[in-house]
């Protein structure tokens, strides 16, 4: 008997006593939460909670209206004294153009190896979903976020997230992130910068992943603040 047949036979015999019915095949498609719509209302509290929880991991959170994103990204990278930046193929053209003038920009297509990326200071990406209760950003590695290694090897990650991408909790995010049909995308869930608590359970930010995480939250409420201020 092959290992496969033998293990399956052992499993079936071990569970022969089970009388409960198998759960009916659940929800097809993207689950109970409707996929993102541009007009999906996001409560002020949810957005505040998201910003608060992201910052709680000692990530930097900057809230700006949409038209200030490019300038903010440039400003953040400059303030950190960084020189080189890799950009995903599908990053907003306006942001890429702004970066082009200010830094040594490496397009994703030229980042052919991890060794190359190891020489780059920062990466700028979009994102897929933000989760307020946990302060998490999920990347689904769509063209505006690039291949997984882009957001892993450089030491600084600047991540732009729209307010309409923020959901309240984990169940909403899980539902949204299920690919309706076909293969599931690779996902990276990020909650603050890389960290460890392996030494006396004392949290230290920054081990192997990016040690600096800057989250630019596109917040139309911030426009009101700006104009009012």
């Amino acid at each position, binding site marked *: 008997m092959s290992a496969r047949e033998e293990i399956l*036979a052992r499993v079936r015999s071990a569970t022969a006593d089970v009388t409960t019915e198998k759960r009916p095949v659940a929800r097809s498609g993207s689950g109970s939460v409707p996929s993102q719509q541009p007009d999906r209302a996001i409560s002020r509290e949810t957005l505040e909670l998201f910003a608060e929880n992201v910052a709680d991991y000692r990530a930097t959170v900057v809230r700006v209206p949409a038209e200030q994103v490019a300038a903010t990204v440039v400003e953040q990278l400059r303030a950190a004294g960084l020189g080189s930046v890799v950009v995903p193929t599908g990053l907003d053209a306006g942001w890429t153009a702004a970066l082009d003038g200010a830094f040594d920009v490496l397009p994703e297509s030229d980042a052919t190896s991890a060794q190359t990326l190891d020489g780059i200071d920062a990466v700028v990406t979009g994102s897929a979903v933000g989760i307020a209760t946990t302060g998490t950003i999920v990347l689904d590695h769509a063209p505006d976020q690039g291949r997984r290694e882009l957001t892993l090897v450089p030491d600084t990650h600047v991540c732009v997230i729209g307010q309409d991408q923020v959901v309240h909790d984990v169940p909403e995010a899980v539902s949204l992130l299920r690919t309706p049909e076909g293969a599931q995308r690779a996902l990276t869930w990020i909650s603050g910068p890389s960290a460890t608590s392996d030494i006396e*359970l004392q949290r230290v930010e920054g*081990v192997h992943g990016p040690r600096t995480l800057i989250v630019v939250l596109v917040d139309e409420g911030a426009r009101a603040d700006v104009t009012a201020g």
Partner: protein
Amino acid sequence: MVTQPVQQTSPTFVGMPKFPVAAREALANTQQRTNLHNATHTIREKRAAVVGEVDDWEALRVAGAEAKDEALHHLGDYLEQLEESLTARGATVHWARDAAEANRIVIDIARAKEVDEVVKVKSMATQEIELNEALEEAGIHAWETDLAELIVQLFGDRPSHILVPAIHRNRTEIRDVFLRQMGEFGRPAPADLTDDPARLAEAARLHLREKFLRAKVAVSGANFAIADTGTLVVVESEGNGRMCLTLPETLISVVGIEKVLPTWDDLSPMLQLLPRSSTGERMNPYTTMWSGVHDGDGPQEVHVILLDNGRTHVLADSVGRQALRCIRCSACLNVCPVYERTGGHAYGSVYPGPIGAVLNPQLRGTASEVDQSLPYASSLCGACFDACPVRINIPELLVELRGTVAEQGGHRAESAAMKAAAWVLSDPRRLAVAQRGATTAGRLIGKRTIRKVPGLGAWTDARDVPTPPKETFRQWWAREHGDGTTTQRAADPGGRADGIPTSNDGTEPGGER
């Protein structure tokens, strides 16, 4: 007929002494006890704070337990579905009956790739099968990349905790081993290294980065394997997981068959339960989910090894199978008063603490001294059950396993004593006769303190013995109330209404303890 064989005890743990013996040695290690006390108390508070934030934690626990039970009760179907989903997404699925078979599969793949090293993500399954040792024997270096695993590897030590395997070491010990050992295996630690945890983490970052950038093959485990989407999930903190799961060309994941979740949506309770229970965070820094091969992104050759190694033996016990719900969060270790004092090594397995005390004797059977002693390595205080995010009733399992051990025989004196006690206690007259021994002793001893009793050294070495009373309650009651069973005043003219005896009943109020 199909049988479910137990796991062979891995070479490291063969001949381990029984728990009380190993525990005595551990208790004498005062540095380790201090380290463990500080660490477990820190994490307890963190966990309590983030669990307290959740509106209905209990409902979440129930949902988590139900998702795992669904998978376990219909495991055959879900394993087949998982295999199909993985294969459809470009992964190669292997099946391993035991540790040797799993190790051989990994070695064969590594040899086919012509590598002499692999990078590893922290994984309990690969520790269980002692993959590193098997690879080493085959001439392949296995580099542990989790900081704590690296520390353990540099010490030539064994992990003592599921989540923080170097919990028994403090920062100074870690600095010393970094300075002494890192150079042996790659980039040395900077000479001016201090014991500041941030500096130590930096040293690990530099030491491991060259290995990440160079490695062609990585080995991981998985926290969850989702049957309907063919997705594997690794939950981590440092980014070493992402490095291993993303950069190498070939990825081999060793996954216990109990890691299956039926559907994508089952992630929802799990991703809420696990981080809060393990590191005491709302969410761990990084979680990677991959479903087979992703075109042009990450490893282009993906292998998944589905491992039995005693799990079906656990599954065959209708009560015991709940232990397979375990998601290796280690909350039970952190709240356990026994683990806090003995540390993990005394449990004689990679699975220490309360979950180890129930899982090891189920996975490996109860033939060895250590596995026979593990079900008794608990005061049954129940803190583990309260903390368990998937509601494994560990005290219930411990009691059940004690029954299994007792049934094997071997504890002849104890068995005889229990039979005798049961005989005495099943009849009040026999009990009354037996109690005379105690009250006779009580009258002889009077008010003196008992500090030594022959044969009771285990108690009296550090504890005084309660002095027996001169009269049992039963005798007092009979004297005060006669054969009547009621304290009703009319029926009991001899006793005082407040129940306080009118005559000297021979015992001191408050009793002697």
